[in-house]
């Protein structure tokens, strides 16, 4: 059972790292600020989500697991909001 | 290389960079950033002292850590006061130079009529 959990953790965390990597590549490679913003707001949030998912089986209690999810949710809300705000500023030609 | 040693070397480097910036940058906000770098380097030194002091079941010596917390508060207050001064200076005069020559009003203490402008 624990080996299964470990495998699950490993897979999820590995995928999370991959998405962080992809987000960074997007941030470096994409040609303009608006497209870079997509890379940032989508890939990294998913990356963090997967890492949280991978850590869930290792949490001490259900409450601790919920706490991890809460952390993710907060980052998600912040990231999504600021992405919109930055996009809005860029659309208006502000830098 | 244990974390304390690494952090100690990093702290020393931070102090060095900060000192360099503090002496050289003419802009007061840059000086403030440099001061904050020195500050965090000093806090890291406290941090390694605390970590090395692990004993009696405590993974760290609580006294230096408490001092760091006090120090961070004080450093923040200092930054806020400095920023308020810089912004006010910029608002009333349109410039933020610290060169005393630029501010000297009386001609006799101002040999060539202007410092950092």
């Amino acid at each position, binding site marked *: 059972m624990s080996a299964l959990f470990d495998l699950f953790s490993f897979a999820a965390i590995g995928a999370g790292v991959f998405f962080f990597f992809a987000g960074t590549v997007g941030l470096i490679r994409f040609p303009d600020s608006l497209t870079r913003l997509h890379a940032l707001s989508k890939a990294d949030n998913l990356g963090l989500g997967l890492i949280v998912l991978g850590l869930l089986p290792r949490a001490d209690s259900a409450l601790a697991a919920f706490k991890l999810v809460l952390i993710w949710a907060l980052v998600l809300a912040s990231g999504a909001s600021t992405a919109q705000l930055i996009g809005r500023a860029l659309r208006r030609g502000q830098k | 290389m244990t974390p304390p040693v690494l952090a100690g070397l990093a702290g020393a480097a931070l*102090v060095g960079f900060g000192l360099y910036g503090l002496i050289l940058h003419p802009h007061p906000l840059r000086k*403030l950033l440099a*001061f904050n770098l020195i500050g965090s*380097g*000093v806090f890291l030194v406290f941090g390694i002292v605390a970590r090395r002091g692990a004993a009696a079941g405590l993974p760290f010596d609580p006294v230096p850590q408490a001092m760091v917390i006090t120090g961070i508060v004080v450093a923040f207050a200092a930054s806020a*006061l400095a920023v308020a*001064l810089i912004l006010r200076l910029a608002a009333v005069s349109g410039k933020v130079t610290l060169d005393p020559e630029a501010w000297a*009003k*009386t001609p006799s203490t101002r040999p060539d009529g202007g410092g950092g402008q």
Partner: protein
Amino acid sequence: MTPLIATTAGGPLLVLAILLPAAGVLLSLALGGRAAEKVALGLTPLGFALAWLIAMQVAAAGAPLVYAIGGLPPPLGIALRADGISAVMLLVTAIIVAAAGFYARAKFATPDGTAESRSALTFWIMLQAIWAALNLIFVGGDLFNLYVALELLTFAAVPLVCIDGRPETLAAALRYLLFALFGSICYLLGVALLYGAYGTLDISLLSQRVQPEAIVWTAAALMTAGLLAKTALFPLHLWLPPAHANAPAAASAVLSGLVVKGSFFLALRLWFYVLPALPSAAPGAVLGALGSAAAVVGSVLALRQARLKLLVAYSTVAQIGYLFLVFPLGLGAHAWSALGWGGGLMQILAHAFAKAAMFFSAGLLAEALGHDQIAGLRGAARALPLTFLTLGLGGLSLMGLPPSGGFEAKWLMLRTSAASGQWIWSLPILAGGLLAAGYVYRILAPALAEGEIELRARPQRARELIALALAMTALVLGFAPQGFFDFIEIGRPLAAMSAP
């Protein structure tokens, strides 16, 4: 092995001396408006009484008063400790703060029709905060606690510099702040190293444990450099003249007379009390050389100033230089050390009183004439005799002419340099005295000359008398009895070994 540091009789007075003005700060802010002035002035007699009581207790005990806060002795807790010089400095601070407070009433009264004004509230709160910070510096027994006191002092002093809001004062305040922050962070780094080396920051415990090793030298160098920046010792003096010259007179007096002494006092604590185990010749020589340079350079720069307040501020740079001669002349356990120690302390006191009196007078002069250009002083002495008498008496002490505290200080220092064979230190003392005569002459000569002068307003007699009283005090110090010098020996490590 280490004696337990325990509270002595009279110890609670030390806590009160710090917390009384600190409580005044809180009360002034909470009540706001006119209450701040009342609170600040109301506390001055209480504060003076406390300082007096502490001095009496120290004299009676012949030993330092100690208070372990919360009943928790060092190394885990914090101790306060008042010895002879602490008690003297507490008294001086109480006197000058009170003088500055009563002197400042005319300028920092809350105007009628407003509930609260910016400059008044700031001044009264910061005055009390400076008082609290200085008292803690004088009696603090823990190096980190003293760091907090240093910061308290900085945060209280900086807003006073720019209290009138002109751009050049804001720039001066900003420079002062950056220097001061640099100074305190260097100090703090030294504190971190000392804790890392010995696991305590209590001064008396440290003094027993300190060995001359690399980490101690590094810590000492860093702390000293930081304190020098805060004390404005040459070549780190650049911030002082604009800051002190542009502040209102009452604030300048406190800044020049007391605030720079706070960081100097810590330098004394560091070398005389924390590090007596270090060999003292080399650091003493370095600090003495810097001090000598400051005494000469500061005096020369003072000679060249066109504004009276700037002249007085540069004179502070020079007089700070003399203070540092206490390191080559007083450090160590020599037969002559006590003599040099007495000279150094006398210089602190004489300069504090003389400089406060001179800034007060310069402020009165500027208010009466509408400017403080030295070139425009012709005939002013006739119109403002009391003010110029004060300037003259203060100048007497700065020059080091008898009878004055300044003379006593320089005389003791000259005697020490002769007794110790370090004749080299007598050169800057004499040169500085001559240069000081030059700049005092520059003020007095035009003022005493014939000339017509138009006064905008006649200064209040009471304010002139406050300034005069301080100048007289600087003079009277010249007659300090032997008992005074015995008193400042109380609690000095190595004092027993170096009886005069």
